[in-house]
């Protein structure tokens, strides 16, 4: 499936859109990159032709198009010297593209319809373009930007507490991480890049394991044909995603908190720490449900899967990678 020429073309187009935005000289060319990104992502969503995936792709297209319309109108506003209106519309458009709260409802209904590899692309690669554009304009927004950051942190952490679908859990976790990313981008681009890459490294093994064992709900963990001693690796990587030391996921949060506190933004740092606690709780709950019910033997045959080399490498990087802070 992933090696069909048409899908490779779409993946190359997504990469091209990223390079287009990174090297664009104007806002209009950046908008072009965003459109290319949307266009190229839609066939990836429709690899498996079910009514749910069709529904998700139409919802994705409509919301992204709305956001693009707002961005194009903001370009017109800049052209007419109405900078305040243009800045507001641009912020709203980019926030919709990112799925940042309070514009996050579309990403929840779309995420439910996707398979795990495409969901990983939606939660990581699709965020690069709007984040980079946000970094370019972050100095113009002030308080409205702060509201979006706080809402993303709060919504992502609190709404994840009542979810049982693993896809929605990962999506809410992504919304919460989006709040952290937006803060890091508003300080320094390289901090945002570092956070983003570590988030990708930490998220990838979790999603790979969910994909291999086809886990859609948190009561399916104990159904995995996977020995408990190896399952602990999965849950340590989930805790790494939650930002718990001594795992790699703690590193970017540590750096950003240090900068936020040194700048005197104590209220922000309080919200960030509290939001992290809530996200850590629902990651831990996944672990509890697996290990409480995992002791019973439900299967007569004991055929246990083992993880591939790439999966093991990503897991080890996620769990043991904290000493990388020496190189930051």
């Amino acid at each position, binding site marked *: 499936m992933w090696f069909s020429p048409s899908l490779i073309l779409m993946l190359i187009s997504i990469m091209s859109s990223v390079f287009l935005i990174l090297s664009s000289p104007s806002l209009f060319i950046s908008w072009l990159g965003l459109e290319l990104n949307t266009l190229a992502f839609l066939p990836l969503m429709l690899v498996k032709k079910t009514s749910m995936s069709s529904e998700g792709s139409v919802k994705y297209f409509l919301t992204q198009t709305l956001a693009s319309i707002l961005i194009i109108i903001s370009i017109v506003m800049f052209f007419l010297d109405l900078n305040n209106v243009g800045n507001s519309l641009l912020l709203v458009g980019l926030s919709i593209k990112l799925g940042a709260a309070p514009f996050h409802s579309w990403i929840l*209904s779309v995420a439910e319809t996707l398979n795990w590899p495409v969901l990983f692309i939606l939660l990581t690669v699709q965020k690069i373009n709007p984040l980079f554009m946000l970094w370019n304009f972050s100095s113009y927004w002030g308080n409205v930007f702060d509201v979006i950051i706080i809402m993303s942190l709060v919504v992502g952490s609190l709404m994840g*507490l009542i979810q049982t679908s693993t896809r929605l859990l990962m999506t809410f976790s992504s919304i919460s991480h989006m709040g952290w990313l937006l803060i890091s981008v508003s300080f320094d681009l390289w901090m945002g890049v570092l956070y983003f890459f570590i988030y990708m490294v930490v998220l990838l093994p979790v999603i790979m394991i969910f994909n291999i064992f086809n886990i859609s709900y948190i009561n399916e963990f104990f159904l995995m044909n996977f020995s408990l001693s190896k399952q602990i690796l999965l849950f340590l990587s989930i805790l790494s995603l939650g930002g718990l030391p001594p795992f790699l996921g703690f590193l970017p949060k540590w750096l950003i908190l240090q900068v936020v506190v040194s700048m005197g933004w104590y209220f922000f740092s309080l919200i960030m720490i509290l939001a992290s606690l809530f996200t850590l709780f629902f990651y831990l709950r996944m672990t509890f*449900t697996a290990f409480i019910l995992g002791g019973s033997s439900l299967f007569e045959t004991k055929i246990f899967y083992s993880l591939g080399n790439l999966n093991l490498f990503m897991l080890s990087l996620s769990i043991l990678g904290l000493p990388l802070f020496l190189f930051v």
Partner: protein
Amino acid sequence: MHRFLTSNICAPSIWSRRINFPVVVPSSSFHEIRKNGYEDKNRKKVSPRQAIRDGLKELKNEIKNWTEEVKEGCTLDPIMGMPLPGEVDMQWCFNESIDFDHWVVTSDSDHNEGYSTSTLSVSPTGKGLFSGNLSTQLVRDGKVKKAGYCNFKSIRPQKSFKRDSFHNWSGYTHLVMRVRGDGRSYMITLGTAGYFDVNWNDQFHFALYTRGGPHWQISKIPFSKFYMTSRGRIQDMQEPVPLNRITSFGITASDKNNGPFRLEIDYVGLELDPSHKETSAYEQYKVPYFYAGY
């Protein structure tokens, strides 16, 4: 202004295409055009002032429902709602206290398209009873070509402020029913209306075969066996039942045999069977583009 545009500018182009369903939406209301069912010809027109008064009467109840939903969302641990393997979680229990407002019973005679009759009542043993008379006799109006169905189904669940909701059966693998039939075959229908109108009429069906006789039977049907239809037509592209988006559950009697039918139902429940790994029982062959289903 809107009435002028729709009646004078948009409408003539529609007439030229000979479309006779109501594409021109009345300017005094905003509603989605139905894609199925029968028009209610006896519907009373309510003035806007009366509609506002009726709405305000229900406002207090809806706010109360909303606060209860928020409290439940804050206090309920979702882990407690997760299915445990081997347990049957009852969805509907049919007994003397059955609330008939939650069920809609229909047959072909409702709109003068046949002569079948059906009722949902309480049986002498205190369980639910779906019974009636099936008749395949056609009404002589020149329009009806097939007749003979009776159905009862659950109404769509609603949240506060009349928002449509779903039954969330995710995590379960089997539908379990304790029934006592008369030897006839019935059709179980799961409504899975989608977000967009092309999917509003999507349903999943499977047969319920009954033994008849004095003994109750427990039918355990995996969701993977259900096949998808849209407006009654079986679809070429089959997919698993979207268990997190179930809108209704119904049973239909239409096995083309004239005569009375009787189905007693004790309960309808759900079960998680960890050994059941099948997602869809219907193989999908890869066909060239522009063949069926594309």
